[in-house]
């Protein structure tokens, strides 16, 4: 008896949970309401079966529980009943399958005239390419991928000259406009998923996959990678901004295309030297850093990283968190660099400075630090050399006290919490590991050994 009661309670509980739980589909922001409908149909069909079978079972357990002097009924089979059950089940299955296949036919068939956007995935971030005014993507070649050509564009291809390259995890799409997303991966499998769009698809290296969607709600949504792609899988987030056609066009007009990026002059160290005079007051004439004024060593750092951080400071993405006084100070200094060219120049000059190992200032258990560094080395490299592909700066031979400070800032939300600092957010998720001082010191002590 108790058994049957519990089964009945479980059924009631499940149904109640279904209707009362606060977790349900996110509000839909695309044309794929039909997908939700198929899910609802499936819920009804399966829900009825779930309730019916279990209540019948509970009833049977009560009614036919063991009693003395009563024997079970002897009935090896009942073809008529079994045939009926088979037929009813088949009908139920068809009820779910038919609309499913109907909608699937629509999902895989992108409408004529859908705009195309390329989504590029790599460990562990996103970037995007728009075909530009000619509506055609230039050819890409995997072997050409480099720090100067992260998309692997073929320079000679005329179709590629006007391709708009977005080296940021933020995707912009116009509202109410069907768009076919072409998915490409530079390294391993990834999966492009936006919960509000209802769709997702893997990115497979060596081929181009696709899906199409028509965003219907202006707003910003999270892009998540949903195919395990290595140790940074959970940090591979992006944003999709759905905006009006005018806003979208305005944004697109500001983005550089392949040709303009190629023509952009390289940083000039001579011009940079003059600009660096301001920096040298704190960071030192040789970019060696100065702990007294909280200025880290710059010499020897990845130029992509330095450029990005200067832009972050200039754009208010870094140094604006409440309580980050030092960051705010640096943001003020970065503002003195008037143009993108000035940023490139000063970084080019820093690239010419001598790279000397600074004095260690942190002590800790390097053996423990080595263990803690296991996860870090996937992005920052086994030797702490940094990988440009992962936007991870060099750590070895840099200011140790600064790295310790920054991990604390990441952890406490003083850095990497700005909605546009998606790379910083990745580090913030990792920095959560360092909840105590000792672990931090151990890690930095290990970095000093690299």
């Amino acid at each position, binding site marked *: 008896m108790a058994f049957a009661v519990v089964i009945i309670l479980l059924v009631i509980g499940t149904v109640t949970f279904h209707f009362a739980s606060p977790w349900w589909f996110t509000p839909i922001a695309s044309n794929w309401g039909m997908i939700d409908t198929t899910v609802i149909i499936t819920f009804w069909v399966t829900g009825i079966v779930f309730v019916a079978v279990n209540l019948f079972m509970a009833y049977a357990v009560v009614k036919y529980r063991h009693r003395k002097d009563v024997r079970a009924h002897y009935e090896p089979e009942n073809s008529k009943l079994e045939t009926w059950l*088979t037929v009813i089940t088949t009908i139920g299955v068809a009820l779910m399958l038919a609309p499913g296949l109907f909608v699937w036919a629509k999902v895989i068939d992108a409408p004529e005239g859908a705009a195309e956007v390329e989504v590029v995935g790599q460990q562990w971030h996103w970037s995007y390419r728009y075909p530009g005014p000619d509506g055609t993507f230039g050819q890409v070649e995997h072997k050409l991928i480099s720090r100067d050509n992260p998309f692997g564009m073929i320079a000679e291809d005329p179709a590629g000259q006007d391709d708009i390259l977005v080296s940021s995890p933020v995707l912009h799409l116009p509202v109410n406009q069907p768009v076919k997303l072409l998915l490409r991966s530079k390294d391993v499998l990834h999966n492009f998923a936006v919960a509000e769009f209802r769709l997702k698809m893997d990115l497979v290296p060596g081929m181009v996959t696709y899906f199409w969607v028509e965003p219907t709600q202006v707003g910003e949504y999270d892009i998540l990678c949903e195919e395990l792609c290595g140790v940074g899988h959970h940090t591979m987030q992006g944003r999709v901004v759905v905006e009006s056609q005018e806003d979208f066009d305005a944004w697109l007009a500001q983005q550089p295309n392949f040709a303009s990026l190629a023509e952009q002059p390289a940083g000039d160290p001579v011009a940079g030297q003059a600009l660096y005079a301001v920096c040298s007051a704190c960071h030192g004439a040789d970019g060696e850093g100065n702990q007294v004024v909280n200025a880290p060593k710059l010499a020897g750092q990845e130029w992509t990283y330095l450029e990005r951080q200067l832009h972050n400071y200039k754009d208010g993405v870094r140094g604006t968190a409440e309580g980050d006084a030092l960051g705010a100070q640096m943001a003020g200094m970065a503002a003195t660099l008037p143009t993108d060219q000035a940023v490139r120049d000063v970084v080019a000059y820093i690239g010419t400075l001598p790279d000397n190992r600074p004095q260690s200032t942190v002590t800790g258990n390097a053996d423990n630090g080595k263990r803690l560094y*296991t996860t870090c080395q996937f992005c920052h490299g086994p030797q702490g050399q940094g990988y440009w592909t992962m936007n991870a700066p060099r750590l070895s031979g840099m200011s140790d006290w600064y790295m310790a400070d920054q991990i604390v800032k990441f952890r406490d939300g003083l850095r990497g919490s700005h909605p546009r600092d998606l790379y910083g957010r990745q580090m913030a998720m990792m920095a959560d590991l360092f909840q105590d001082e000792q672990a931090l010191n151990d890690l930095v002590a290990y970095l000093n050994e690299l």
Partner: protein
Amino acid sequence: MAYVAIADRDHEAHLHDPDTFITKYIWSQDHKVIAIQYGLTAIGIGLVALVLSGLMRLQLGFPDTFSFIDPNDYYQFITMHGMIMVIYLLTALFLGGFGNYLIPLMIGSRDMVFPFMNMLSFWVYLLAVLILVASFFVPGGPTGAGWTLYPPQAISPGTPGTTWGIILMLVSLAVFIIAFTMGGLNYVTTVLQARCKGMTLMRMPLSIWGIFMATILGLLAFPALLVSAIMMILDSLLGTSFFMPAMLAAGEIASYEGGSPILFQHLFWFFGHPEVYIVALPAFGIVSDLLSVHARKNIFGYRMMVWAILAIGGLSFIVWAHHMYVSGMNPYFGFFFATTTLIIAVPTAIKVYNWVLTLWRGNIHLTVPMLFAIGFIFTFVHGGLTGLFLGNVVVDLPLSDTYFVVGHFHMVMGVSPILVVFGAIYHWFPKITGRMFNETLGKWHFWLTLLGTYSIYLPMHYLGILGVPRRYYAYGTTDFIPESAMTMNTGITISALIVAVVQLIFLYNMIWSVFRGPKADPNPWKATSLEWLTPDTPPKHGNWGPDLPVVYRWAYDYSVPGAAEDYIPQNQPPDATHKTVDDHAEAVEQAPQDDGAPQA
């Protein structure tokens, strides 16, 4: 040509009882000892996987709290947890454990047809387990590629354990497949060749049908895993490009070119989907027997049950790509695989109906094994129905790679088979050890496990509908995952830890009962099938004493009208139950069997 049971033929008629401890318990060729060796090893490694899942849940339930679980560890834990549970625990336990124990006893044979190979199978399996465990102690640790081991990430930098871990994993799998093939050849050949007199195919208990079909699936499906393991080892060690495309690795252009990652996925799931049924079919079979025995009623629709097993086994080879709807494969495959997948729901549903109809008009004894069997129906119905979401290609789109999937396959492939494993252990414990277990502890174990696991996996489905992705170490800041979802995660973790601790009740009960439990009746459940009719309990080497049993009826003669007892053992000749109803009256006298020579 006269038939002589294999086990009665000359060269195996003199099964000498092993005398020393070593030959009796270590290098034993007795299928029962091998079964126990398989079972204990599988449970042992399964406990490791249980601990790993506890650690993962700690991280998910209490993020930023345990600095000893970093992302590297976490992805290693999910990989090892999944692989151990699916292959080294469930497959080994159902086939190596229950298959080994039950096949010869239930079909009335003295042993497997190749006892030496059977013994070898266990030791090779143990070797596979040891290789797997060794990967915890090599530089870089075990692989963290997820149990699906998808290339390129499985062997490219960026994933934990790509130097040693993945190689050990692949080698261990290959070794496991060798062990399984040795065992599997035995199970199939034994069922086909060594049944005792009178044991027609349709008189076999459904446990045997399930195990038999699962073994055939395994024999045909594991080669896909073997082939892909060999190819991936070559890609990793010799630099071939079977699965590896041109790609970046650690900031450099890797030397690979032209491999196809999707080819691996096809091979993997060609194995991986039948693997689901390799676990499920024995569970289906065993649960049918438990329900029938404890409801004192024949299994309803026996023939339909057998056909369903055959149909599910056959269909399981043409549904594999439903794991790949969002993999980037040719989208037109979606139509075919969604259709086959939903068709397979029909025979599966029939099995569920027949279990429930077996209870109907039964005489239900809510013993501990019965509780687990009925609990299984509940969880399996839940897990099976959510499978209809994921099998239907369009419905799968929002749910794929979310916690809905995690909830689904844990209900259908984790909780459900494990409930059957527990039920089966309680059911056959008196035969295996000759002692009874403690019923009260058994019931506590059941209730806490059922309610605990349900409270873990039910909410996961709803997190999945929300869109919470699986295989995430932490969730950081997103717009669409509310704080309440994280609170739920904490709750799930607490349930999971309780369920894990509850298993100690089971272990205590088993260990205590083996030594201190009251002596068991040889047939405590009054069951009809042959394993309960051995002359000794636990059965001795050779199982049957001087004469093999002869079978006169199917395994489900419960509550036959007119019979003296509410069960008629399979080996009971018809004249002993002459008070049967009319259509039983024509039963003929069993003709004496001439002992001819083995046919060539």
